[in-house]
């Protein structure tokens, strides 16, 4: 990097989130303003990948000061250049405001959202230009593969990864080094490595961020795996819903080839490696490793029975190593800095960091990479800034459709693969969806079952029929038609589906129901026995609305808002809602200027 000649660098986030909020226009405007003032040779503008704080986008960081601007607009650029770049004065109104203290925070390291983060997999995301291989190399990129190829045997690479304690970030948490050992030990003239970038878990987007923000770290991790297991061909299976990720990865692959990092006889050794992209075609079950391989082979993405495991018989029947994006992204650091250093972070059983996608009813949504062993409370309150709109916390859903919902009293649990399993949840891909008092837990369970039910590939009966039965029961409960015995029936079905389904989709599909039954059983009971929804979310169970006669000013606004003409009253006089006609849609509530309408 020709850093030295520039007096300042301006990083503009160019991830999917910020593109959607208009960063391209901001960049053009900034470049125009710089050109007008002849600053193009002094100030370098770099478009980076995601900073993880997409909600506040478009984001911009000005170096060397490290000033963090959020929600920047094209029209702000004149002021940024005039005031900040020319006069050295920070533009206060574009700074991040702490939601709890109301203070403006100039430097991004001081923002709560970033303070507790510790980055390994995302280390370059948001700091380098992902379409410029030189920038990756300048941060020490491709040093690990150089070291492995010239100083280490494949077995030494495997041993280092084993020693690091790295476990798969794609959900199951299987020890990565051990998986590589299986693939290495397997007999075969041809072997493959695959990266699972299908990221189907709703609410998770860390893999997309890595692909968009630092594609080379994934490529390097895959080359290391290929060398370790003895593969000469690889695939990255990316979901088609990620067009920008695919584009950046394509550029990165080309640059890696041009620089002799992919292809024949790497680093003058006899190790060769070819890497290709495969676009998914939209099926959640294809995230399952054997279904994914069936999909690469051009078939319907249906899971196959295991064993044989992919390490013995994978793609086209050949030994194959498959890992998740984030897993591979951890490997270069392990090889470069050593397993010992890597293990210093995290817990004994779960080393290193994990990227969580924080979403839902929380102040700061985004991606946070934190050491394993952190508590849920730290993530939600310290990093996430707590629940938004001043509401009460109710539950956090972790692990997507295979995971579970944890209540308030589990907030101090330290998070790692094993502790989560113990409380009936799982790490999954690391999606954390925070729910507040207005969220109905029966509805959440119904939502996930609806998802898994429609994504079931239909190959085996318990998953295909069983999830449908569970869904029907849950639907009945949410409309007030639950019956005595439904809870027990749900539990029986759940156990059955778990133990008899072929793949992880079916085996974990009942988890959201089981965990909500475990921690929020009273909500189920309220729906079934009292026909009420304590959270006030299930519309069919809500009573009619009423107008507080004292408060009503007779403005007539609500009569117009009501779709079924259930509200009557003369102007300037008290209005009345006909209870029988009211469909409890709530349309009037939002319109009333004096908040006179309640349920």
């Amino acid at each position: 990097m020709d850093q030295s000649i520039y007096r300042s660098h301006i990083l503009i986030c160019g991830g999917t989130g910020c593109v959607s909020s208009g960063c391209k226009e901001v960049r053009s405007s900034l470049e125009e303003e710089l050109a007008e003032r002849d600053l193009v040779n002094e100030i370098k503008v770099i478009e980076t990948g995601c900073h993880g704080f997409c909600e506040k986008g478009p984001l911009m960081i000005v170096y060397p000061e490290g000033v963090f601007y959020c929600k920047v607009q094209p029209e702000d650029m004149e002021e940024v250049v005039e005031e900040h770049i020319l006069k050295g004065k920070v533009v206060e109104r574009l700074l991040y405001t702490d939601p709890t203290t109301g203070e403006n925070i100039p430097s991004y390291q001081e923002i709560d959202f970033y303070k507790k983060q510790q980055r390994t997999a995302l280390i370059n995301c948001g700091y380098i230009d992902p379409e410029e291989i030189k920038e990756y190399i300048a941060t020490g990129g491709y040093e690990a593969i150089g070291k492995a190829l010239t100083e280490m045997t494949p077995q030494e690479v495997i041993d280092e990864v084993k020693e690091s304690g790295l476990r798969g970030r794609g959900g199951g948490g299987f020890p990565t080094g051990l998986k590589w050992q299986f693939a290495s030990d397997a007999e075969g003239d041809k072997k493959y490595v695959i990266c699972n970038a299908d990221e189907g878990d709703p609410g998770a987007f860390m893999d997309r961020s890595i692909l968009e923000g630092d594609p080379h770290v994934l490529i390097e991790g895959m080359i290391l795996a290929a060398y370790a297991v003895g593969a000469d061909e690889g695939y990255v299976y990316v979901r088609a819903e990620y067009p920008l990720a695919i584009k950046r990865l394509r550029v990165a692959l080309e640059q890696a080839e041009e620089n002799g990092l992919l292809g024949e006889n790497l680093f003058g050794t006899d190790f060769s490696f070819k890497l290709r992209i495969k676009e998914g075609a939209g099926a959640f079950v294809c995230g399952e490793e054997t279904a994914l391989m069936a999909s690469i082979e051009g078939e319907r993405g249906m899971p196959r029975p295991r064993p044989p495991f992919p390490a013995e018989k994978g793609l086209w029947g050949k030994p194959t190593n498959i890992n998740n994006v984030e897993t591979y992204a951890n490997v270069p650091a392990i090889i470069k800095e050593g397993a010992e250093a890597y293990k210093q972070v995290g817990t004994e059983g779960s080393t290193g960091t994990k990227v969580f996608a924080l979403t839902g009813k929380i102040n700061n949504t985004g991606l946070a990479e934190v050491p394993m062993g952190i508590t849920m409370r730290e993530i939600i309150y310290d990093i996430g800034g707590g629940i938004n709109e001043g509401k009460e916390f109710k539950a956090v859903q972790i692990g997507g459709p295979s995971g579970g919902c944890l209540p308030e009293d589990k907030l101090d649990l330290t998070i790692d693969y094993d502790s989560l399993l113990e409380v009936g949840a799982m790490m999954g891909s690391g999606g954390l969806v925070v729910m507040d008092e207005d969220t109905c837990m029966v509805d959440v369970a119904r939502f996930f079952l609806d998802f898994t039910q429609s994504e079931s590939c239909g190959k085996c009966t318990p998953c295909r029929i069983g999830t449908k039965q569970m869904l029907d029961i849950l639907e009945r409960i949410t409309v007030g038609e639950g019956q005595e015995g439904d809870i027990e029936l749900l539990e029986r079905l759940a156990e059955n589906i778990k133990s008899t389904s072929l793949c992880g989709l079916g085996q974990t599909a009942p988890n959201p129901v089981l965990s909500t039954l475990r921690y929020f059983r009273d909500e189920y009971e309220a729906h079934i026995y009292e026909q009420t929804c304590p959270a006030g979310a299930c519309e069919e169970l809500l009573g009619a609305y009423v107008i507080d006669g004292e408060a009503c000013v007779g403005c007539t606004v609500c009569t117009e808002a009501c779709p079924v003409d259930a509200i009557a009253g003369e102007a300037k006089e008290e209005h009345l809602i006909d209870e029988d006609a009211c469909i409890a849609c709530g349309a009037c509530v939002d319109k009333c200027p004096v908040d006179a309408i309640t349920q």
Partner: protein
Amino acid sequence: MACSCGNAEENQEKYFAPLKKVLENYDKKAKDLIPVLQETQEEYGYLPQEVLEEIAKSLRVPFSQVYGVVTFYSQFHLEPRGENIIRICMGTACHVRGADKVLDTMKEELGIDDGETTEDLKFTLESVACIGACGLAPVIMVNDNTHGLLTPETTVEVLDQYRG
């Protein structure tokens, strides 16, 4: 694609020309089925029956397998689709932040249901599970563009951009 204008053969050739071009880039093996279908759909906007039959022949796979693959993946479509594809995220993060209101607004504005295409073939509406922009929930994607932090009002504004 029978027609009565007298130059059926020539028409036929024209109709299959884009497919022929797609096939040129592949070594015509079963493993290429999915990428061939993806590229072909890019060309035709959907996958007409005649085209699928041609693909089955060229790749030497049974038609039933082609059909099985096409119906398995949600990306493939057997019916013509709108000029603009609107994908509404119904994933968890979007669900808890009001995705159903966005979907309802779209349905009302376009006068179609989830999975349908407007009569003028301008818009197709689809609900999807997650588009990986969960930090901006609720999110929709129109063609390749992502739009986030939507309310019913801004949903209409976004739609207007594409109504042209």
